[in-house]
């Protein structure tokens, strides 16, 4: 604590009396902070103690031991194997993966639509820009929960399984979801997946090398085609080595449902469309604002230098726009993830939906809610950390 006295001067050391301490700004700041922290910790401990004691007084079970007990309930959609004989903990994981998958798909879709609409908003085409404006105003001014229910009701009124709408002979659209043909499961598929990841990694390494090469020697190496070759070529190569299996699993109506193929449930679809469209409205506005933040003079200057429009967008507008776009985009992504908890109204088995069931079967509301809050907090923090990292990449670099 040598820095306590802010007016510390080498040589002429003032006497450390109580009054000099009291008048020292940094000392007082430190004391305030310590007191504040102590109060927060105290309140936290008090409330924690209160909850624990009250629960005990009412003979309500506490603790996280229930996570290892058998759940005894089933889940409709799952990405990992799960049955009623598995634990509550595993049920939570199933819910988490469902939340992550709908959020990832939602972020992808919202970004795609958001950027398209945002660019259309400032288009010189009158009709296009008005349609885009109308879209933005509609999707972002209707509560997201109503939108999700709307899509859910709409999808529910599709024809039933017996009157399925056939989609180009490879899929069927019913009120039980979209079922379509996929390549039949084959061991080579996992190898192809690894090949795809390897291809992407190699392509990224390649472009890094190309940039370094250009910066050191000035020679431009076009990595576009080699990259595409790597990303597509490697999995194709793996497929050829695996004997080029071409078996397709077609959906066939059997019993109550379709057998074979892959089904995307209406609950997933309704939730995905609902939360993605809602977020896309906000993203469109963020994108528009970002694009308009580039001074017009710069664009005109670039054009007058004879650069093609695409080049102007890629090298003049976008680098500046992204700096404006990325920070608010992050909060849109985070709120989209949180909005996915609306799943509970349409019955998509996300983290909250399963958490609710767990809470009711075990009666341990405080613990179940705590697990859910912690998971959302973690996902949101990871998302913003990643986006902050990306933001640093696109931010102005002062050299």
């Amino acid at each position, binding site marked *: 604590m040598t820095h306590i006295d802010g007016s510390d001067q080498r040589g002429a050391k003032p006497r450390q009396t109580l009054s000099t301490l009291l008048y020292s700004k940094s000392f007082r*700041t430190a004391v*305030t*902070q310590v007191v*504040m922290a102590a*109060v*927060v910790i105290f*309140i*936290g401990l008090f*409330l*924690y103690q*209160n*909850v*624990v*004691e*009250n*629960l005990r*007084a*009412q*003979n*309500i*079970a506490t603790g996280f031991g229930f996570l290892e007990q058998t759940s*005894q*309930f*089933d*889940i*409709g959609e799952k990405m990992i194997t799960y*049955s*009623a004989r598995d634990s509550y903990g595993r049920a939570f994981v199933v819910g988490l993966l469902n939340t992550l998958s709908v959020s990832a798909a939602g972020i992808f879709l919202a970004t795609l639509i958001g950027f398209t609409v945002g660019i259309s908003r400032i288009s010189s085409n009158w009709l296009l820009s008005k349609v885009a404006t109308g879209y933005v105003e509609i999707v972002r001014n209707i509560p997201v929960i109503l939108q999700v*229910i709307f899509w*859910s*009701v709409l999808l*529910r*009124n599709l024809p*039933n*399984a017996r009157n399925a709408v056939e989609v180009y002979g490879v899929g069927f659209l019913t*009120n*039980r979801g979209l079922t379509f043909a996929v390549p039949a499961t084959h061991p080579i598929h996992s190898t192809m997946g690894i090949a795809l990841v390897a291809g992407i990694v190699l392509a990224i390494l390649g472009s890094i090398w190309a940039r370094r090469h250009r910066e050191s020697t000035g020679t431009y190496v076009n990595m576009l085609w080699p990259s595409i070759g790597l990303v597509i070529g490697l999995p194709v190569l793996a497929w050829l080595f695996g004997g080029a299996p071409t078996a397709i699993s077609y959906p066939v109506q059997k*019993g*109550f*449902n379709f057998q074979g193929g892959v089904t995307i449930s*209406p*609950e997933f679809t309704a939730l995905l469309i609902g939360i993605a469209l809602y977020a896309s409205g906000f993203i469109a506005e963020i994108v528009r604002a970002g694009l308009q933040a580039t001074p017009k003079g710069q664009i005109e200057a670039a054009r007058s230098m004879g650069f093609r429009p695409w080049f102007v967008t890629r090298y003049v507008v976008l680098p500046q726009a992204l700096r404006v776009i990325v920070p608010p985009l992050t909060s849109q992504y985070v709120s989209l993830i949180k909005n996915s908890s609306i799943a*509970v*109204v*349409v*019955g998509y*088995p996300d983290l909250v*939906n399963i958490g*609710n*069931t767990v*809470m*009711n*079967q*075990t*009666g*341990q*509301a*405080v613990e179940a809610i705590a697990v859910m809050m912690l998971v959302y907090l973690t996902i949101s923090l990871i998302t913003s950390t990643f986006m902050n990292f990306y933001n640093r990449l696109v931010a102005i670099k002062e050299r």
Partner: protein
Amino acid sequence: MNKDFKLKTALCAIGLATLGSAGFADSGDTLASVKERGEVLCGVHPARHGFAAPNSKGHWDGFEVDYCHAIAAAVFGDADKVRFVALSSQQRFPAIQSGEVDVLVRNVTATLGRDTALGLNFAPPIFYTGTGFLVHADSGVKTVEDLDGATICVAPGSTTERNVAQIFATRGMDYTPVVIENNKQLVDAYVTGRCDALTKDKAALPGVRAYDTENPAEHVLLPGIFSKEPLAAAVRQGDDQWYDLVKWVTYATFNAEELGVTSENADDMKSSDNVDIQSLLGVTGDYGSKLGVSEDWAYNVITQVGNYAEIYARHFGPGSPVELDRDLNTLWVDGGLLYGFPIK
């Protein structure tokens, strides 16, 4: 920085206080606080026709609603001194635990887990039922065995959710659950064909068919009962006086039916020579004061609400929209499960 810090502190405190408030509850003297308040807070189902639902006049109506009235009649001598709190299946247990309601008469199945881990006590069951299935008539499904591979609509957090897993597992069959909390959305999902079957307590399904489907004839109840669902009133553990009262109000309705005491003849019955009837109606003994209420507690229950048979007939009897056979819900003397402990 400092200002920001203070703000965060305040927010933290508010957040934690909200979290903590669930723990504040008076686990002590429910009867005294009910008397002081002047009404019983009764947790009921938001819309289960026959059991609890608002009627066309906007009043709560149903079998379980009447048991709320019975408790009020016993405490206050006035069956109307009840405030109904509609609770979803998710909300019901926190509501009783936290003291938001005094008693839960909300299609709650009495189970060991709930009795212990949830800190509840169950009064004697007022309705015995089991898991049932409602299916589309044109689906050709005749028995539960025909449901292999089906999609089943089920409410979350219910015993039914577990029963259906067990029913299919023991038969080696597959199914896909669609789990929706909101009852309207759940039933709608079944009616539009998203699900092949809707599963609930069997006693609840005729109500769904009568009120929530456009054409009730298009839906059939599968034969058979697939689990044990004793529906009982629940109170907080640790308040024996209140628990005793709820328990004996329930027995009083059973005993009244057994002794032939109805809302019509209760006044005449007061002069009966039968000691059991005299004890029930408070003519002899001090059973009321032992329970902490007036001596004519059971008389008030019977005259203002009725005996078990009257309550049942009012909501599930012939001519009611949700007609249900009494089945297991008959007196022990008639081969049923209703067995009122003696008021002695």
